[in-house]
């Protein structure tokens, strides 16, 4: 059952474009999917190591800009009159660079702030996101600033012998997001259900005790930060090539808040949590649109969040697991195989 559920979920998601033809709703599915990937990445840090990154959108935005600029090319002049010209590269290289550069940023932010953790990490991540947003806004020569980067090429799918297929359509992008999402899920799942994940949970639970059994706490914090940032960068790249236009608003604090809400309501420290939370909060605006004004939509959003957090403080997924008595040994919250 436990093994079957993720497979069934993937099949169910994969069937969506077959029966859902409304472009507005399909668009909502794609963007929700992208945000779910971002929320999954945040969950690795927040749910497993217990570190709250309130600037997580920085990695998302960096991924978006790196990928867009790599595929669009640029021509800028640095200090001292050095001219840097970059010819457009294929989109997939942009995607890879987005992952790598976001990961490097995660490493740097982690190195900077993990000496002193907790509140300090929160502040460093917020500041980092703000700095990156200001760079995107003001380095007009590179980023076009508030004028936005436009005409970003879509992802292409190379078909052997047949040339290339541009992934313009919503359905095509949906499958792309689903595929990347599955890969990210598998990476996070393998990490967290191994001794790496146990080390992360240990340092969240009781750092002195973790250290006393020989866990190199900093190493696992950095590993979590890098992986988390890299996956957020991947989500950002998907976002840029799907919308095909990005401006400094991708660094909005509201996006980080959305990810945090998705993780906490769904259940932090669970694999399914960000997906469940993401589905709920990704589709509220869609559902609410039919009967509520934009202002009251936000009220509904907030009210639902508070309700969930009050009724199910650990989130929806842990509550369901307790209800059905299924618990995952490797997520460390309870039962195990019968003792030998």
């Amino acid at each position: 059952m436990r093994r079957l559920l993720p497979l069934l979920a993937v099949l169910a998601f994969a069937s969506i474009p077959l029966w859902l033809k409304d472009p507005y709703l399909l668009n909502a599915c794609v963007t929700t999917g992208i945000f779910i990937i971002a929320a999954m990445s945040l969950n690795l840090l927040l749910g497993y190591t217990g570190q709250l990154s309130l600037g997580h959108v920085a990695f998302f935005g960096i991924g978006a800009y790196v990928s867009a600029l790599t595929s669009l090319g640029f021509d800028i002049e640095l200090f001292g009159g050095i001219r840097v010209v970059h010819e457009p590269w294929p989109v997939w290289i942009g995607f890879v660079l987005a992952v790598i550069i976001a990961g490097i940023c995660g490493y740097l932010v982690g190195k900077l702030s993990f000496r002193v953790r907790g509140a300090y990490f929160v502040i460093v991540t917020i500041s980092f996101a703000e700095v990156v947003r200001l760079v995107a806004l003001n380095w007009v020569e590179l980023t076009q600033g508030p004028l936005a980067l436009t005409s970003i090429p879509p992802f292409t799918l190379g078909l052997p012998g047949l040339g290339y297929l541009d992934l313009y359509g919503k359905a095509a992008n949906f499958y792309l997001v689903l595929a990347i999402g599955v890969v990210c899920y598998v990476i996070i799942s393998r990490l967290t259900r191994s001794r790496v994940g146990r080390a992360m949970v240990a340092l969240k639970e009781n750092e002195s005790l973790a250290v006393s059994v020989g866990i190199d706490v900093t190493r696992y914090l950095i590993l979590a930060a890098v992986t988390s940032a890299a996956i957020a960068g991947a989500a950002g790249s998907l976002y840029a090539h799907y919308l095909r236009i990005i401006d400094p608003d991708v660094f909005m604090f509201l996006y980080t808040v959305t990810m945090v809400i998705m993780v906490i309501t769904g259940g932090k420290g669970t694999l399914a949590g960000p997906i469940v939370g993401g589905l709920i909060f990704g589709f509220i605006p869609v559902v609410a649109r039919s009967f509520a004004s934009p202002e009251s939509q936000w009220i509904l959003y907030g009210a639902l969040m508070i309700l969930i957090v009050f009724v199910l403080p650990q989130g929806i997924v842990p509550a369901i697991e307790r209800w059905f008595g299924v618990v995952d040994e490797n997520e460390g919250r309870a039962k195990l195989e019968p003792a030998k």
Partner: protein
Amino acid sequence: MTISTPAGLAAPKPRVPALSVEHIAVHFGGLVAISDLNFDVNEGEVLSLIGPNGAGKTTAFNIITGFLKPTKGTVRYRGTSLNGLKPHEITGLGLVRTFQRTSVFQTISVFQNVMTGLHRRGRSSLWDTLLALPQERQSEKELRDTAHEILKLVGVEHRAADIAGSLSYGDQRLLGVALALAANPTMLLLDEPVSGMNASETAAFMRVLTKLRGMGVTILLVEHDMPMVMGISDRIVVMNYGRLIADGPPAAIQGNPEVIQAYLGVGAKKRARD
């Protein structure tokens, strides 16, 4: 057995120092927690460090295991200076501690606690994990087997599936020892392991300790339970006001007037006369 036993250290015990605490001093601002501490623990020995509350015993543990840096002095383990090593590196050398306050990973199962403690014994690399290679499965299986053995050894096997925070006080203390054992110690530092335990829990703990000593694990014990200390120690060192005031076998310590004065109190004086 998976608890590693240093080769060739079976009885009779040779007097080879495993741990050397060399003229340690610790100052907290103006407060001198330890003024000058100097003692050895021999391979395979059970050495008790006793002294009244505030004498500096826990501070000494924190220094030895790298949680605090000494103001002066050096600690050596099997010839290696521990100066500048991080606590997890010291654990890697086989020197593992428990905490005076109950310390387990509260919200995860007893079994997962020990699995977490086995961290350094895992043999799979990050790539093995990410790609789910056979090495990963093999290593995890070994760890699970070892976890069961350790739980059996300390006697909390029957609670393996329960959340650690739901265990009785005594079982949590035993789990604390299981966690330390999981880290594969050649020397174990126990900080008041039976304080707060009832008589039967204490007896259970004594049995575990005896097994460990039989396996050749060197033990440094801080404890206030005098019958236990006198019964199990090969040697006792006594601390008061941040320095050592006595060093010797249990019988000598029991009769030492300075120790009786400083620590054991009137009742013990009477016992010592008997």
